């Protein structure tokens, strides 16, 4: 519906502007709070103009929150999730779209079901698996009686253990195993004309060659879109790192931010240092914002799928 009347124009612009203000106001308040001393921040009435303490607060937040180490950890995890996700969803979708086999639909539905079970819902079993990644196999062996059989025959007790707590693998793998990326790729692969696949067959390209030479170059925008989403998603993770990491050398930024705002009970009645917390927030927000800004063009193209 495209209508152009002056009144409608004004109304739509008002709606847009109010939405923008609604979005930017918290950001602005964060910047304001990050640029004052503690006394100015908690003053009533509140200061609505930025102060001159921004750099001081930023440096304090950086050192106090060990943000240097946390940034490195978070970058490693975010990149791990991003690449792991892209590789896995690409290969899974490839198998689902271009090969005909009996298990195609069951596998597709199994993946589909995981969409309804995000990490937050299955966090307890996921933690159990992270504590011992071989637990599912151990359970299978126990239930099928193979453990019993082996111990009866050889006297060896089968006990498999692979602990993922306090490791990058433990942080990354559960975040990689979700279905969204697979769907994005599947939808894209379904638009590839059958004749293109056949032309590649006639040219002698095997499946992997076809994936590498044709599908991956064609899905560059998809990769960019997925990379952006996954980077931001992994960067902002809070609950899972909080749970799986007890060793602070693996801590991630979002968790650290929570610690910058100490609880009243823990500080013995001292006022929380909001100005430092806000300064830390500013630093932590920066990488996802930069990624989105740089990837925006690709990101949009990848999602609307017009680049063909």
């Amino acid at each position, binding site marked *: 519906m495209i209508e152009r009347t002056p009144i409608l124009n004004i109304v739509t612009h008002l709606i847009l502007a109010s939405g923008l203000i609604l979005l930017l106001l918290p950001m602005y308040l964060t910047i304001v709070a990050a640029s004052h001393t503690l006394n100015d921040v908690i003053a009533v009435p509140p200061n609505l103009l930025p102060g001159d303490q921004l750099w001081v607060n930023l440096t304090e937040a950086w050192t106090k929150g060990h943000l240097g180490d946390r940034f490195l950890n978070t970058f490693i995890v975010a990149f791990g999730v991003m690449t792991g996700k892209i590789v896995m969803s690409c290969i899974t979708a490839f198998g689902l779209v271009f090969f005909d086999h009996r298990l195609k639909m069951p596998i597709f539905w199994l993946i589909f079901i995981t969409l309804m079970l995000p990490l937050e819902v299955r966090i307890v079993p996921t933690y159990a698996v992270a504590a011992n990644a071989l637990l599912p196999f151990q359970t299978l062996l126990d239930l099928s009686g193979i453990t019993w059989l082996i111990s009866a025959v050889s006297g060896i007790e089968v006990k498999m253990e692979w602990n993922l707590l306090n490791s990058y693998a433990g942080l990354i793998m559960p975040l990689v195993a979700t279905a969204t990326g697979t769907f994005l790729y599947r939808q894209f692969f379904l638009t590839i*004309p059958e*004749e*293109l696949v*056949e*032309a*590649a*067959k*006639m*040219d*002698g*390209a095997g499946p992997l*060659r076809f994936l590498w*030479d*044709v599908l991956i*170059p*064609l899905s560059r925008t998809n990769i960019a879109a997925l990379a952006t989403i996954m980077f931001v998603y992994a960067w902002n993770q809070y609950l899972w790192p909080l749970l799986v990491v007890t060793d602070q050398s693996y801590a991630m930024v979002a968790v650290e931010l929570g610690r910058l705002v100490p609880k009243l009970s823990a500080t013995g009645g001292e006022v929380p240092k909001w100005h430092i917390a806000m300064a830390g927030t500013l630093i932590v927000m920066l990488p996802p914002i930069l990624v989105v800004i740089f990837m925006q063009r690709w990101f949009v193209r990848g999602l609307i799928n017009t680049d*063909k």
Partner: protein
Amino acid sequence: MAQISIRNVRKSYAKQEVVHGVDLEVATGEFIVILGPSGCGKSTLLRMIAGLESVTSGDITIDNRVVNDLEPHQRGCAMVFQNYALYPHMTVAENIGYALKVAGLPKVDRLARVQAVATSVGLTEFLERRPGQLSGGQRQRVAMARAIIREPKVFLFDEPLSNLDAKLRVQMRHEIRRIHNHIHATSVFVTHDQQEGMTLADRLVVMNKGVIEQVGTPEEIYHRPASVYVGGFIGSPAMNFLSGQISAQDSAVVLANGAKIPLPVPLAAAHDGQFTQIGLRPEELALVPAGKGAFDAAFEFAEELGAARLYHFQFEDLMLTVLSADKPAVEKGKPMGIRIGAGAVHLFAADTGKRLSAKVGSRERELV
């Protein structure tokens, strides 16, 4: 250069059989066109030769080697697809050279061969472009070049011209024929366009509902269609069909309204009393004053074709068309006599639809 044998090949999808036992021999260097309406199994047959579809039963051999279980690229076939199927992210040069790249040919040799092939199809100035920046005809040429560069023994074409406009189609048709003469590969070309089939083919294969109706040179197929189906499918404007009964006494076919169409004596004698379908090509009929022809028919309307005119008549409950280069003026509703040229009558059995011919001794000889 290869000879292809197709022996009793069948293809079923689930329970449904779509190709019902096809036998075909293609000689080395021959240009074969498989012609038929959509859904007749012609593309399926081609794709079975290419290796893109599995063969349910029967054998396909290329140069006396059974290729049923070989991968497409091991069969020495190259294929040109209807929608070109070019790789959209590669340049023209990369598209043409991709098969060689997969085969592991060094880059220098590859570029030299791409250059040579591009020259032969007139694509040298477009090598750095992408398929999206080319016109339909140029894309078609890239698809051809991609097939040529593999130096295939067998060239397969799956309706490659149907996405082009009429003028370009004729031009590409000539080009395909020129390339065929130049590289001497055995070619199998699938189309539903009879003009394409007639002009390109050394031999035509007419298919219908999963079986081959007739194999022969375009001339044979036009002049001696083996069945009602082939007669009606080949030729434009389409053949007229009238039903009647053969009478040896009159040495003619007697139509429902009593009109008689004369037949040669041996032919009438061989099939006395049989119900028949007579095929009459519009171009073999002539217009004469009422009462002077084999029968009279009421004129309905005419279509101007430029060099000739197409007259439509009402005859019994059928429409009858006559193609006349003389373009006589005719009034609507007025009866005209229709004269049948010598040797213009094609007789088909009314029940089986097969062509009827006279038997002389033990040999079947065509007398019509």
